[in-house]
């Protein structure tokens, strides 16, 4: 196991500018910034509504550079990853991407992310949060090299119904045959880059990865399509992303649940089963961290579950408690919520306690809301969804639909 010496942080600069910063500043009319993994990141560039609809009805661009990226190579790279995550990475072929979560010894989720099998034995792990310490700790006894490459790669997420058309018009080659979760090494307007058909939106979309030196040229090639008046392309920020990811059924570690190893109170962390991620826990593979604990957990009735909820009425259940009936027993609370403009309904994720492994027959949200500064209480009946709220057929059609 080896690790690269990290570059010294420039303490005069509190937040790191991304390689796209010069262009992002020009597009960020509101100067509404946020911090993401140490980078200066857009929260809202223009208005949330316009950014949301860029994802849902045209083409959105988001700076993905702050996403934590780790390069994992070496003879034991596969064994290391298979011991790390709950899915079977031996099934991940070169040129493919897999979503995965990893757990601590107690089988509680530390973070989620995507694993890119770039070339045989050469992997990239993208994670929401900083993971180098856990990766290095997990590498004891494995002949792997783990290098943090967050700053070495400039990445853009290009998502929306016209994402393919925009990129094809910008000159990206070979996208028509790229299936969901596929990766290609290609070029666009003379820039060498890697494109994966991945995203956080439940719709057609791509993620573009290149050397930071190419960042501005890559940006300009995409936005040239907008400037020519061919198709609309819009920069989006974290707030719009938060909306579309809820619609698409993605969970956000650290927001929707407490990440393991950061939790102070017992039982405030969550296992993949408790997050509804049963489908990515594979017991018919070599040992992985947390397997023993998860086998034991599976043998008992489930105690709680993160569920997708849609609500009656037009009020959003901000911070609401959940009850088994109107004025009934408290069985949980809402951890994420939104009004879905495209579905015209309130959506939420609820952390719900189960009884003997089963959800209550009914779930009601207690919603406090204001009318001209006067607080009122309303009850909204919830419907539990097992599938994502929004998953358009464009997401998986290959070749992709064009506009």
């Amino acid at each position, binding site marked *: 196991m080896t690790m690269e010496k990290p570059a010294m942080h420039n303490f005069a600069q509190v937040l790191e500018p991304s390689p796209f910063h010069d262009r992002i500043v020009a597009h960020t009319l509101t100067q509404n910034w946020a911090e993401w993994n140490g980078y200066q990141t857009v929260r809202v560039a223009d208005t949330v509504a316009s950014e949301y609809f860029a994802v849902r009805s045209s083409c959105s661009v988001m700076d993905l550079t702050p996403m934590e990226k780790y390069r994992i190579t070496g003879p034991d790279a596969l064994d290391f990853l298979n*011991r790390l995550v709950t899915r079977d990475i031996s099934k991940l072929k070169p040129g493919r991407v897999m979503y995965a979560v990893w757990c601590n010894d107690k089988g509680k989720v530390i973070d989620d992310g995507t694993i890119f099998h770039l070339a045989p034995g050469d992997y990239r792990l993208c994670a929401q949060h900083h993971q180098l310490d856990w990766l290095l700790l997990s590498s004891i006894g494995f002949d792997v090299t783990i290098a943090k490459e967050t700053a070495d790669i400039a990445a853009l997420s290009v998502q929306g119904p016209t994402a393919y058309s925009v990129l094809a018009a910008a000159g990206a080659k070979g996208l028509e045959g790229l299936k969901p979760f596929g990766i290609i090494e290609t070029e666009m307007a003379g820039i060498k880059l890697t494109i994966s058909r991945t995203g956080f939106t439940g719709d057609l979309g791509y993620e573009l990865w290149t050397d930071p030196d190419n960042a501005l040229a890559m940006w300009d090639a995409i936005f040239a399509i907008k400037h020519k008046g061919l198709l609309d392309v819009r920069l989006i920020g974290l707030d719009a992303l938060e909306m579309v990811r809820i619609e698409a059924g993605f969970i956000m570690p650290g927001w929707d649940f407490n990440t393991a190893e950061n939790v102070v109170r017992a039982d405030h962390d969550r296992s993949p089963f408790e997050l509804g991620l049963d489908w990515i826990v594979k017991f018919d593979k070599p*040992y992985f961290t*947390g397997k023993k604990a998860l086998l034991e957990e599976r043998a008992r009735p489930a105690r709680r579950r993160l569920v997708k909820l849609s609500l009656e009425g037009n009020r959003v259940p901000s911070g609401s408690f959940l009850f088994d009936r109107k004025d009934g027993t408290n069985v949980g609370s809402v951890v994420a919520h939104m009004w879905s403009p495209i579905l015209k309904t309130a959506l939420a994720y609820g952390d719900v306690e189960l009884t003997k492994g089963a959800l209550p027959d009914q779930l009601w949200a207690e919603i406090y809301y204001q009318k001209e500064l006067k607080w009122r209480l309303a009850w909204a009946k919830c419907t539990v969804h097992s599938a994502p709220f929004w998953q358009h057929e464009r997401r998986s059609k290959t070749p992709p639909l064009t506009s």
Partner: protein
Amino acid sequence: MTKAKTALVIGGGHNGLICATYLAQAGCQVQLVERRDTVGGGAALHHFGEGYSVPALAQMHHPLHPKIAKELKLDAPAPAPASAIIALSREGQHLYLGENGATGTGLSAEDQVAYIAFKQEFGAYAKALGALYLNTAPRLKDFDLADGTVLAKLGWQLRFGLGRDAMREFLRVGGMNVYDILNEKFASPALKGALAAQAVLGNHVGPRTPTTALNYLYARFQELQGPASHGTQIADHLRDAASDAGVSITTGVAVEQIMVSDGVATGASLSDGRVIEADIVVSNADAKATFLNLVGPAQLDAMLTHRISKTRTNGDVSKVNLALDSAPDFAGLNADDLRHRMMIAPDMRYVERAFNASKYGEISQAPVLDIACPSAVNGALAPAGHHVLSINVSFTPYRLKQGWDEGRAVVLQKVLDILEDYSPGIGAKVVASEVLSPVDIEAQYGITGGHWHHGEMSIDQGFMMRPVHGTAQYQTPIEGLFLCGAAAHPGGGITGLPGRNAARRILAKAAR
């Protein structure tokens, strides 16, 4: 025994032999595999030079706990004659520190009285802790009936065995360092030096390191089992007991891998290509060797692997064996005195300074020497008229800045220089010599870091956290794999308790 019919014991140290004997006597079919050519590990006899032998590592030890002899119906070896620690003095004013009193030129009447009181007081504490040493260390979370019983016994012993005032005093001194405790009790620097050295020897601690009171109590607990004798017979004794019980012993073959299938240990593959299948696998090896090498991190949770890899297992003691062409001559000691444990640790600062060097990867300028002359009681260990000295040299760190290729000669020269001060002319008598550094101990005995105790004996690596929490209580995360060596509670030394407690745990589990 209902479920487990066959057991494989990895390693034939004294604890492995004891555990195997318990299992065999309970009706289990037991195979024991030892990588060395003889069993006994650090408690075996070691040959060097031409015709000289010394105890390998455990040069002097107290008897195994009497419960073991009783439970295993062992023939009790002839009790050793009462032995003492002699605090050697350059000027020949040696102190004799025995179980029942201390004597010596210049030792004040106050110190003599205080010594008796001190031995009694710490004897009572050690006896109270026996409830802990003799049982599986209780978990503090999710504890079951057995855990509760041990905690209750310990609580009872502390409160009613000791009495209220003694319990309060125990709670005061239990976390202290021996330096402060001995300064409270005694005036004589030589007396304090020898007791401090006895407390810290074998661990990477100095007299001023917090909680060394517990290290002394563990030594005191072993003293309570009877007088110390030279470690020349115990290995054969335990080997015969194991064989008599039906344990099949294979030597000269190493275990290469513990086989695990779906989280269950199924046996082991050996260096001779054979595979032994067993219902139960018991490892006498240390925790790092067992988990990181024999099981492998791929079968274990990441944090557990990390915690095991971070346990402190670097040894600090070198063993120097000297063959002499005549009896060593210490001014003021008569020939009979050579059977005692002789300590060169003139005062506590000497011991602390000796430890300081090891913190920085250096050999002590003036190391503590713990000297035994086993040939004084067993003429077979050396040719007629000749003698052997077996010397524990502390502190000599496993990770030595200058490297052990150079370090061995440095240690030998230091030992000879110091001995010359106490026994002028001794250097000329040396006909053969040998230095086993911690690195050599690791290579020869397969103990990670060459640590006598398979890891530091400290409160954070002790009791329910030995070797680490999550694999204490002799059980491991691998179903059917158990630890029975010094890496398990109560730890190192020749007590036999890890082996016994592990066997009892295994048998109790099988009976369920």
